[in-house]
């Protein structure tokens, strides 16, 4: 790893400088993570008096637990929908904003700020909108003959958290798509126009292919977001219900630890999540290395 060609020399200063960051990392990141790894291979009795080494038994149990597998599927479906919806909407808006050069900043201002709204607050806002008795969206759906009730209907509940999660994330995706579009040299579009390609054709043959690295990167970011950062949406609105229909993995690991008090299982779930983050981060960094050059 590179340093500067020109460096300072000092016996202990550099250690002092990295000490705070390293200390916090060790105490609050590395140590707990290794604890999770350690506990994931132990089983504790109901009274917390005795622990024994059980190898991969916790993992085996986990992957034989229909509730866990169901939660896995829920999370995957949920993440795919959040990523798809937020990226799709963001791409359409970004393409439009890129074409209206002069007002792009104005629109950006209007579209950017939901990113600042906490996922939990976003959840509450949409929850209110879709409230079966007083929500305006539920009212509108009722008017077209759909009986919306996310307290009863798992599909409705899932739709609600997907919308709330995607709404907030569109801002982020929009910024990256817009930056990606604006990084495409004007001369390329002009050359294509001279070659007789209209705006729609140009989008499919020039802009979209050149955006694909950005899009790939955003897929990873959005999946990470949906997996790990939307706990607040679920917790503040559906609480995993109705039934277990909106129990995403992060929600489950929290519930099992703090309400179920199932240490071994919770630790095993943490380890599985860790593996997922590491895989996603690795993919993301591979992408960063292979960034395209215009």
């Amino acid at each position: 790893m590179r340093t500067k060609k020109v460096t300072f020399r000092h016996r202990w200063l550099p250690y002092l400088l990295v000490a705070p960051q390293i200390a916090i990392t060790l105490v609050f990141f590395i140590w707990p993570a290794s604890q999770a790894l350690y506990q994931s291979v132990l089983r504790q009795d109901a009274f917390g008096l005795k622990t024994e080494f059980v190898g991969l038994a916790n993992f085996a149990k986990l992957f034989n637990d229909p509730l866990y597998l169901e939660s896995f599927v829920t999370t995957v479906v949920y993440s795919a929908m959040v990523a798809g919806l937020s990226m799709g909407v963001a791409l359409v808006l970004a393409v439009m904003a890129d074409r209206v050069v002069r007002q792009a900043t104005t629109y950006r201002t209007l579209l950017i700020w939901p990113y600042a709204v906490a996922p939990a607050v976003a959840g509450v806002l949409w929850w209110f909108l879709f409230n079966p008795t007083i929500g305006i969206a539920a009212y509108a759906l009722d008017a077209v003959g759909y009986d919306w009730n996310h307290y009863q209907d798992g599909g409705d509940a899932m739709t609600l958290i997907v919308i709330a999660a995607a709404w907030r994330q569109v801002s982020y995706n929009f910024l990256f798509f817009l930056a990606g579009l604006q990084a495409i040299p004007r001369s390329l579009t002009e050359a294509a126009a001279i070659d007789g390609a209209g705006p729609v054709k140009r989008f499919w043959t020039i802009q979209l292919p050149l955006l694909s690295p950005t899009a790939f990167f955003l897929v990873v970011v959005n999946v990470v977001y949906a997996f790990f950062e939307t706990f607040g949406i679920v917790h503040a609105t559906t609480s995993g219900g109705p039934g277990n229909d909106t129990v995403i993995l992060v929600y489950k690991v929290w519930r099992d630890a703090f309400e179920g008090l199932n240490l071994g299982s919770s630790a095993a779930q943490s380890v599985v999540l860790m593996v997922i983050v590491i895989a996603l981060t690795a993919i993301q960094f591979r992408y960063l290395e292979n960034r395209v050059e215009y």
Partner: protein
Amino acid sequence: MVERRPLLLVVQHAVLILGAAVFVFPIYLAFVASTHTAREVNSGLPLLPGDQMWTNYATVLGDGLSTAGAPPIGLMLMNSTIMALAITLGKLAISLLSSFAIVYFRFPFRVLAFWTIFITLMLPVEVRILPTYEVVAQLGMLNSYAGLSIPLIASATATFLFRQFFMTVPDELTEAARIDGAGPLKFFRDILVPLSRTNIAALFVILFIYGWNQYLWPLLVTTDESYYTVVMGIQRMANAGEETPQWHLIMSTAILALLPPVVVILAMQRLFVRGLVEVEK
């Protein structure tokens, strides 16, 4: 764009305006609800702001929702501010220091230090909930501002951003400073930090939003209501057991909870956009 097509232009603006409207709508409605009485909100669907704004906001700020057992929102807002600022400033400070060490010194264990910091990227709170809670509990940091902020201030992202920026600072500046008699700390304070101020400002926006919007962490480490933050506290109101939720007050709280980060992002939009795109590079 390359050609003029009036119809296309109209479509573009229509799509954008529609998009913007969809984005604003939930907040607008929340604001409308926050200006009416409970009865008005629960009976009909008012679409225009009412006249209860001051009453509602004064109620939540001063008293909170006594029925839900939540403390006044004023206190929660203060807690949120303290937590967000502590996280933001803490992250900035330790990241500046550690990237300075990693870029400007050669020392044994330098690469190890870098990877240790890097690993935090792969270990969000969400994947180590219980053991982290246990560490904080053992250190006696539950229900404290330190517990709310310190465990979150390690930052690989900020360290990477500063490292990347430091690598672009010309070596001659360091040499000129050495000839001018500046040692490492003087160089850091007089030259490197002032040169990083744009990056610091951009990160400030991102980190402030990150800090303010924390949800799971305050949920874990606070049981004492006087340490509740507004973002996690709002859930207490919404899930107020058997009673009908007091939507007009919940929405007032929601507006108050989202206002500070939204103001920050809009006020520093340019820096934020630059910072965000930089961070991910």
